[in-house]
């Protein structure tokens, strides 16, 4: 019983850790897609965030400077995307793709030239990593009679020892729900993604709103990258985002561009991943050992199945992907 509880808690805890970058990236995508800019460059921005935050953290030994650098990198690339797609009405998918390819080359190239470690940054010492939050009273709670044996492990495994950025992500999720549906900025954001001409007629700048959305996107993706390389991991390795940006995009579509369902989709993907790690090499009754590659592709297969079946027609923000050209 206690073992089962512990296993479940560890699975959930792993789910939260894996979900954090996905959630950050998916919510990043939510801001820009809600404003009408498609961004498949989440992956590249995350990778840039991961590289620059690890590079700065390892040279300054200050994780917070690293985090800032990661965010700055994400924002800079988001501005490039905006320059191409908003200012010059370029194709948004192509721009995103270009950013992904550019960063996939740039990060290892710079790492190779700056650190001479075969396209990686040096392993970060503990003081250069974004710390975890140690909550008080872990032992005390476990000692409480009756409640202790159940709540103790829950508190210890789920809540204690989470990275700062996990808590930040939680706050951001709640904030996004509020911003999108309760704030003036959110209303305008949703309007510009549905009907930019109307927003323009109301005297608001479409371009400015979309740039603002992209700034948020850049910051959140940069943070997601920082979490990967300086929070969860200890240094940048080549291709460390490994498709998470695309998964986040899928989660966003599956969640129909809404905060709650998108969060759920990210947690679902992360849970599949956590289970996937557990399943490797385990003999299942009646099936035997499943080859590790099949388990690894679970999240991707799940994505396709979800997009094919359960969501039905995902209805994107109406103006998403279409450059807004005034005086047509």
């Amino acid at each position, binding site marked *: 019983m206690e073992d089962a509880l512990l296993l479940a808690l560890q699975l959930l805890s792993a789910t939260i850790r894996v979900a954090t970058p996905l959630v950050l990236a998916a919510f990043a995508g939510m801001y820009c897609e809600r404003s009408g800019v498609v961004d498949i460059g989440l992956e590249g921005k995350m990778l840039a965030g991961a590289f620059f935050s690890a590079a700065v953290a390892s040279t300054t030994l200050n994780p917070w400077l690293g985090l800032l650098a990661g965010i700055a990198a994400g924002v800079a690339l988001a501005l*490039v995307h905006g320059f191409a797609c908003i200012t010059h009405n*370029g194709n948004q*998918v192509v721009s995103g793709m270009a950013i992904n390819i550019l960063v996939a*080359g740039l990060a290892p*190239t710079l790492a190779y030239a700056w650190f001479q470690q075969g396209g990686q940054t040096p392993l970060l010492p503990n003081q250069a990593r974004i710390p975890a939050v140690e909550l008080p009273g872990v032992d005390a709670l476990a000692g409480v009679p009756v409640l202790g044996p159940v709540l103790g492990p829950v508190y210890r495994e789920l809540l204690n020892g989470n990275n700062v950025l996990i808590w930040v992500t939680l706050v951001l999720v709640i904030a996004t729900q509020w911003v999108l549906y309760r704030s003036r900025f959110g209303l305008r954001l949703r309007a510009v993604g549905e009907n930019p001409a109307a927003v323009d007629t109301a005297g608001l700048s479409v371009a400015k709103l979309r740039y603002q959305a992209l700034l948020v996107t850049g910051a959140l993706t940069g943070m997601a990258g920082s979490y990967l390389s300086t929070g969860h991991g200890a240094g940048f390795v080549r291709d460390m985002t490994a498709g998470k940006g*695309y998964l986040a995009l899928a989660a966003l579509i599956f969640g129909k561009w809404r905060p709650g369902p998108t969060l759920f989709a990210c947690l679902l993907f992360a849970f599949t991943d956590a289970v996937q790690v557990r399943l490797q090499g385990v003999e299942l009754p009646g099936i035997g050992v499943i080859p590790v590659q099949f388990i690894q*592709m679970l999240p991707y297969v799940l994505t396709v199945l979800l997009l094919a079946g359960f969501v*039905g027609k995902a209805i994107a923000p109406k103006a998403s992907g279409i450059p807004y050209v005034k005086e047509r």
Partner: protein
Amino acid sequence: MLLSGSGKGQPGAVPGWVGYALLPVLNLVAAFVLSGLVILVIGENPVDVLSLLLSEALGYPEAIGYTLYYTTDYIFTGLAVAIAFHCGLFNIGGEGQAYLGGLGAGLVALALTGWPWPVVALLAVLASALFGAAWAFIPAWLQAKRGSHIVITTIMFNFIAASIMTWLLVDVLIRPGSQSPETREFDPGVWLPSMDRALGWFGITIPASPLNLSFLWALACCLLFHIFLRRTRWGYELRTVGRNERAAVYAGISPARNIVIAMLISGALAGFVGVNEILGVQHRVILNFTGGVGFVGIAVALMGRNHPVGIILAALLFGVLAQGGGQLSFEYPTINRELVMVIQGLVILFAGAMENLFKPQVETLFRRRGTAAADTGRG
């Protein structure tokens, strides 16, 4: 999906070559200037590096052979992306389709030991087309019938293809007793002859390089592509769906059917990469032989304006980058292969996404001249 810049002819006195020649060249120059900055940042001289890149790609016959070998791949994937574009679809799954195409070609070559190479080559072309098309079919069908976003599904299928191929090569097709995940080498009799061998039959000697007969097949595909799109009813229907789906419906053309057809052709074209790589060069099925050709195909199609001639030229450009960039790491210890991806990314960014960057200024420049001439004529 709208392709900005295509078909929106501006009225006025802007000559056509400004659109399809001058602007792309300006964008290319911008991309190379930025690449130069990156090279400067990593502490090398950009002019030296870029001129070495050019001479290693085009400077001597053997290098040209290598460049054309890369070009072959890029023509296939460029055509693959372009045919989907013509139907209004974004096929980002060229990578996975090429990977599976290689499997098809490889299985044929493994099974037909001892057969004459022309028969094997023909069957391998069919098999790679079949495998590539099959891999494109599911995303196509999902897009046509369920409205699943094809950009996402094809990306997912790239990941799934990578997993399946790793499993096949590690657990199933691996040469018994071998450690590295690859099949046994094909019998030399079934290899697709390299260009130097083929030309040798006619008494022409060129230096040995991976360039093989699939280059001719790539050029043939360009011709077939053009005939299919512009001279057949199927091509007309496909383009109609791409231009205006609703108009197509009213004209009695089924968008779903054309979406599937376009993606099947697209997958088959991407699959031909397998013929070049597996049957022509590697002579065994190996891990990750595609190395990003599917993504480069997007850039090639965009730069080539989805036209076969443009695609050949753009594929040549990316072939130069791949070959020349690959050689740089031998001369410069601080530079590795990934620099090529930086340049590719910048070229895609400037030539694809920012294709309108210089358009207003350049058009004003040329238009002003035009109106000035008209004014003097009137005066």
